[in-house]
């Protein structure tokens, strides 16, 4: 099994943490109870799980533009993931991560990142070099 995964250059600082992964999509507005720090959308595969301080691994970003401000607000309250890894990010998540200085990466060349990483694994995310190391 590969322990070093390559992706496009991302945004944010180098971080280390525990993976929370699902083959599902993401919107801060549609899917989260941001006060409690959990996924709240009943249909979401991570419903009920806390995303706070996790390395969140999901398929694509979805939905509306609100996530950009919301990521900043979540980070300011320290109720945010440490990083988000997507197969493909949309513009909003990248823009929000840029304002919040939240680590975000996407476009992994080794395949579907939601299959390559499992919940509970520990990883280091190095966005400036486009690398994710499985510890």
């Amino acid at each position, binding site marked *: 099994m590969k322990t070093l995964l390559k992706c496009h250059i991302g945004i944010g600082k180098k971080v280390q943490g525990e993976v929370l992964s699902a083959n599902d999509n993401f*919107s801060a507005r549609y899917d989260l109870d941001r006060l409690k720090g959990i996924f709240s959308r009943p249909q979401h595969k991570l419903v009920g799980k806390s995303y706070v301080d996790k390395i969140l691994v999901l398929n*694509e970003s979805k939905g509306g533009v*609100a996530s950009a401000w919301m990521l900043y607000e979540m980070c300011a309250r320290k109720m945010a993931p440490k990083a988000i890894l997507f197969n*493909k990010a*949309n*513009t909003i998540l990248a823009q929000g991560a840029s*304002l919040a200085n939240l680590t975000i990466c996407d476009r992994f060349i080794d395949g579907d990142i939601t299959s390559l990483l499992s919940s509970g694994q520990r990883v280091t995310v190095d966005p400036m070099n486009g690398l994710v190391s499985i510890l």
Partner: protein
Amino acid sequence: MELNKEEKAMASGELGEAVKWAINHQIKVGNFFDAKNFVSVSNVHMMIDPESVGIDGVLFLENLVGMGAKVKIPMITDPRGVDLNYYTPLGQTEEMANIERRTIKACTSMGILMTNTCVNYQTIMAPIFGEHVAYGDTGVVIYSNSVCGARSNYEGGPSALAAGLTGRTPRYGLHLEEKRIPTKKFLVKFKPEELTDWGLLGALIGKISGSYWEVPIIEGINHNPKSDELKHFGASMASYGSIPLFHMIGTTPEAKNYSSKFLNRLDDHIITLDDIISLKSQFGKKGDKIDVVVFAAPQLSIFEMQKVAELCIDKSFKVPVIICTSPQVYSDASRMKLIDQIEKTGAKVLQGTCFYNQYAREIGLANGWKRLMSNSAKIVNILGGYGYEPSLSSMENCIASAVAGEIV
């Protein structure tokens, strides 16, 4: 990214700290998406509701104001989260209203026009074909790109603000012709009638497309859709699939650029009436009790307001009915006595807001609203995550259900 002389001056702080923040934010985003340079934009639309912004976002805005931030080009806003003339009855708090007041003050200080609408293409000024703009609100972006032929990515609030301060945006995504080429083809085998049908059709195409980077092209719509129909269609597609652009053969301006030979290379996704009925069945059934009926998302046009007003004649409702429209339409609707006609029933028309960005979770809890009914496929998608059990039906059926207190 390649920067010209002015952009280098912006990035180094020669044009002030606010502009320095703005262009460096844009450079980070541009690098993420491999933008080679910037493109000038003519105007900006920003989403900035208080629930999303929060107190920390307000402090960020006030800090920019303190740096002397002023927008360089016309810039307008998406709906507010608090109607400052009507928030206590909704269960919104003074704290929420104060975040709203401070947001408005900061925006106004920067020269932003508080238009508070997500239907600016119907009420303020529609962009023209080929015009590069920086728009927030997914419904605004998809309509402007698809129906008007303008060029915009989804610009979240921070990036829209940055575009207002610099007058430009990184040239990536839908500012590039190659990103506007269809990637998926849909063949529609039924005729959408109600706005809800259009919303459901948009939802299905959005769900199947499933990515910001997919561009659906739609065949089989053999009549000329109206603006409100494409408004619901696009807003729903954007909501369910994060789609910022579609082409519709015979309707949208760029669809004719693609030959049958090109389109034949794309797989057909066929959408039938059964698909629509199946999706709709996930949102409530006859006899289900309801707590509130909402018409919003997108804000109602003057034609929709007229229809609601007509449906309200001689009606009395068992559950609250809330309608959200833009300040521009509200003013006209008030002058034409449509607001009086609607509110005579006890229904409430809010101006410059949209229900789902009005602290939907909190007002639901404060009022005991869980089973929400709407004709908007977009709003029923969003509110599931806010603890609601939404149901979906036509405007006529929503009104009839509000009279009965249950889905009829």
